[in-house]
């Protein structure tokens, strides 16, 4: 549909190593699922760019098509879609998330 929104999203996930599309901001998440992912990233000391989809309805809809993923939050690392809240939490609990950041050379708090 709207290629410009997809282009903008692609630009954001290319320009920033870690991007979280979320409801609200990292400081004031407006949804428990977004808050969970923010907490995990903060716990790991991973620097990320938060994109508030509530501030732009075209991004809110566009991101769902971009990733074929119907829900927010969505985590991208080095341009790759990693998953939503459940996957990120599961990966964090098994240590896969930390491993993935290491493989992608994203600094994580030791």
């Amino acid at each position: 549909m709207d290629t410009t929104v997809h282009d903008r999203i692609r630009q954001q996930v290319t320009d920033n190593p870690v991007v979280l599309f979320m409801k609200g901001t990292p400081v004031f998440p407006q949804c428990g699922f977004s808050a969970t992912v923010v907490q995990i990233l903060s716990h790991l000391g991973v620097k990320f760019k938060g994109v508030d989809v509530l501030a732009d309805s075209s991004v809110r809809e566009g991101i769902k098509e971009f990733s074929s993923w119907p829900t927010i939050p969505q985590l991208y690392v080095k341009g790759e879609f990693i998953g939503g809240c459940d996957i990120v939490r599961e990966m964090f609990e098994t240590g896969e998330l930390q491993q993935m950041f290491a493989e992608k050379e994203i600094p994580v708090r030791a």
Partner: protein
Amino acid sequence: MAMDAATIERLIKEGLPDARVSIEALRDDGDHYAAHVVSAAFRGKSRVQQHQMVFQALGSRMGNELHALALQTSAPED
């Protein structure tokens, strides 16, 4: 704007006929559920792909009528 657990289970099974589905209501609002889906179709797929298969079965409802479905997927153990 809400769904009952039986509807969610039916939709998932329509998309993934061999699936074993267990659903738990997280809140009594018909809007927040946790689902554990086990299907042989998940073999060899990444977690993202597995969740996408469940979302596909639920169609446009996910994210709309159904606000929150905490999802856990796995392939059956041999």
